[in-house]
């Protein structure tokens, strides 16, 4: 039983297809990188899988069932720029939002939810900022709060949209530690990522995407020069000098 | 000239004045600031009346332009102190308008400047409100004011065309090459204020917003070129004024309200049927794409 199975997914804004016939299967308990150039449809892929934007064709199965957000097996970390950080709320409150799906309509978060949320903040090293207004957090700290919120969702599969963008080195390390911890707990984590340098260090499995899936599979077999050339086209030329690829030393 | 002709001329002049000014407001996303100014000029007119104790159009223009620019300055100040822009506009215009209404009901009760009139305009009286300027024969005041403002607006647009264009398109780049972006902004706000006052008698404070925004928005759906958009907007403004007048006299209703409504109807037509940018035309071309 695979955590996520996508078949023939096509998404179009106006006339242009942003994703075309995308199919892939995600193995359980792995860290999976979704890699591709700008405009390849990486964020769109996540949103379409989670049912946030309409699909033109295709279907998404989560643990062999057609996906419905209500089942709460999936946690989501959106891009940090997607919200108004001046919103009147503090870090703990944002993390508590991750519990809303479990709490249900009309009810308020209780003591247990608060403890759990504090626990999640601790896991990302943010417990001392629990009552801090969110606009007074640094970019990296805001990203950690978002991660803690996803943890509070207590899901089996996590989707993260560019969690490493605009964060400091300490946060990047904290995030990757957390991802590994989640993996050890048997959770599946999909991360949209664009830093090719770190791909082979971070991920077990990659999906190379540019409107279609170019290649997918275990990192050591898939993250090759040939596949990257196909994904990035001419823009890859300057990257070849570095030793980013598997088996290129 | 006949009574009807004067109304049509004044309405058309207001349509041209508002139409050309409105294009820039739409492109610069200042529609709501213009809405705010059209309300606050009421305070400017009341203050001008209280200070000069006369209803001279010249003082009114000055007072309104001053308060109009002041509104833009206040909004800018609040915005730069960290308040989101829509809220800054909302706080400033409601306050200044409220003060205007209070002053009006306290001190200027029995003058021509009554609130209903200021809000809704009364174009029917325009042909009778005559004044004599210099060597000219006696002409309707609204006609003279609108002509003056139209000339000023046209001069500004012709003289500063490329500055207006670049500051509307890319203000940061404009600032980088040394165009005084803020000055251009306040000049435009001054134009809006004067246009509003001059159109006050014919259409009133709130409906002037329809005349400012609707023709420009319709023209925006028809063309991609700024100069053509300006001309189309002026033409549509005139068309709405004329159709609005005849519709109003046919149905026996408020002329200014009818002009605003016709403006809305014209926009609705282009919203659906404009070539290329209309909703239905877009759908049609999509269908053709699918068939081929």
């Amino acid at each position, binding site marked *: 039983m695979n955590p996520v199975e996508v078949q023939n997914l096509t998404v179009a804004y106006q006339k242009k297809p942003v994703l075309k016939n995308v199919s892939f299967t995600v193995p359980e308990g792995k860290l999976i990188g979704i890699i591709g150039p700008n405009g390849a449809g990486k964020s769109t892929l996540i949103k379409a899988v989670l049912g946030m934007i309409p699909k033109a064709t295709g279907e998404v199965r989560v643990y062999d069932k057609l996906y419905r957000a209500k089942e709460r097996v999936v946690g989501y970390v959106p891009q940090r720029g997607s919200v108004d950080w001046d919103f009147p709320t503090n870090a703990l409150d944002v993390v508590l939002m991750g519990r809303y799906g479990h709490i249900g309509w009309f009810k308020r978060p209780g003591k247990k939810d608060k403890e759990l949320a504090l626990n999640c903040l601790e896991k990302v090293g943010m417990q001392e900022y629990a009552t801090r207004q969110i606009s007074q957090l640094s970019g990296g700290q805001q990203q950690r709060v978002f991660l803690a919120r996803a943890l509070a969702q207590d899901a089996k599969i996590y989707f993260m949209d560019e969690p490493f963008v605009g964060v400091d080195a300490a946060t990047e390390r904290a995030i990757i530690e957390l991802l590994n911890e989640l993996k050890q707990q048997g959770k599946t984590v999909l991360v949209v990522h664009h830093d090719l340098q770190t791909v082979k260090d971070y991920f077990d499995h990659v999906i190379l995407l540019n409107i279609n899936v170019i290649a997918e599979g275990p990192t050591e077999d898939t993250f090759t020069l040939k596949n990257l050339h196909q994904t990035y086209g001419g823009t890859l030329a300057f990257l070849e000098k570095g030793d980013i690829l598997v088996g290129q030393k | 000239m006949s009574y009807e002709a004067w109304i049509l001329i004044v309405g058309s002049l207001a349509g041209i004045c508002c139409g050309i000014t409105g294009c820039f407001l739409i492109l610069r996303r200042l529609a709501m600031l213009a809405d705010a100014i059209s309300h606050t000029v009421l305070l400017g007119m009341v203050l001008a009346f209280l200070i000069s104790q006369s209803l001279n159009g010249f003082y009114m223009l000055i007072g309104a332009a001053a308060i109009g620019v002041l509104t833009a300055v206040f909004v800018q100040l609040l915005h730069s102190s960290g308040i989101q822009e829509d809220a800054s506009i909302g706080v400033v215009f409601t306050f200044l308008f409220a003060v205007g209404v209070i002053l009006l*009901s306290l001190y200027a009760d029995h003058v021509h400047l009554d609130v209903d009139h200021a809000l809704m305009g009364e174009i029917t009286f325009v042909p009778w409100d005559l004044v004599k300027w210099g060597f000219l024969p006696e002409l309707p005041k609204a006609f003279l004011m609108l002509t003056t403002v139209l000339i000023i607006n046209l001069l500004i647009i012709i003289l500063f065309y490329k500055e207006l264009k670049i500051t509307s398109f890319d203000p940061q780049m404009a600032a980088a090459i040394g165009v005084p972006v803020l000055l251009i902004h306040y000049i435009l706000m001054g134009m809006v204020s004067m246009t509003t006052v001059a159109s006050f008698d014919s259409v009133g404070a*709130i409906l002037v917003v329809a005349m400012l925004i609707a023709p420009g928005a319709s023209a925006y759906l028809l063309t991609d070129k700024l100069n053509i958009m300006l001309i189309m907007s002026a033409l549509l403004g005139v068309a709405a004024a004329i159709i609005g007048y005849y519709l109003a006299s046919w149905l026996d209703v408020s002329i200014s309200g009818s002009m605003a409504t016709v403006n809305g109807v014209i926009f609705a037509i282009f919203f659906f049927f404009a070539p290329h940018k209309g909703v239905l035309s877009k759908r049609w071309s999509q269908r053709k794409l699918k068939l081929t």
Partner: protein
Amino acid sequence: MDDVIKISLADANTQWVLLGTILLGISSGVLGSIALLRKQSLIGDAVAHASLPGICVTFLLLGEKSLFPLLIGAAISGLLATFCIQAISSYSIIKEDTAIGLVLSVFFGLGIVLLTKVSQSSVGNKSGLNDFIFGQAAALVGSDVKLMAGAAALLTVITWLLFKELKVLTFDPEFAKGLGLPTKLLNFVFLTLLVSAIVVGIQAVGVILMAAMLITPAISARYWTDSLARMIVLSGVFGAISGVFGTIFSTFGTGLATGPFIVVTATFIFFISLLFAPERGLLTKWVKRLRLNKRLQHELVLRKEGKSYQ
């Protein structure tokens, strides 16, 4: 002046009116703060203006000025206006601010057209329809106020019940979708609440100044707190205070509209918040910076002196 207040407050009708404006202040303050955070304040302005044709049509159909159907009519045309704004800004290249201004002025124009029809029609008692433009709380009677009280209370309770959902929807709509919340339905529910708060408030403040009741108390409240719950409560309180003082001031003269006075009071509260609020007030910030500078200078002098002793 005390006597005037006492006399006017002793009057039973004035008490009803005061109760009415307090409740309106609360409901518009509460929903206004969410609208503010959703950047929908000016949509509120458009809804208020756009309620005029609804009011006129209802009056022309019924031929009498009874509050409940008028409010329903106002709400329908208000909702229609929000629908038009969303349609224009999502299906064409017209930006949202232009769409708001356009819908606002055209609906209001249509309202004026219908208003002239109303004043020509021979049916019933049409006096007071004009009050909708500037708000005349003094014209409220007991039964009106009871209706408003019910509506305002209902709105506040629904907002309280949906607080958690509205909060996450406002802060992070994508995440709310990811949680499986029916975001489209919630958006519609919120807009309906907002439109209801507006049409109920129009009685006291009038269509033109209604925007102030949504924006000014909310933005003032934002200065005093970083918690959404407290901001909403404070905004309701500020709205209520504005309602009370505005109503009292407007009773000093005869025939004065209540709306402008309520708005001026609300703006006064805003100025106080802008200047003196702890943490965020401009004056408070300035004094703090001054103190910090002084301390730093002092430390600098001490250090220099310390060095010179060595």
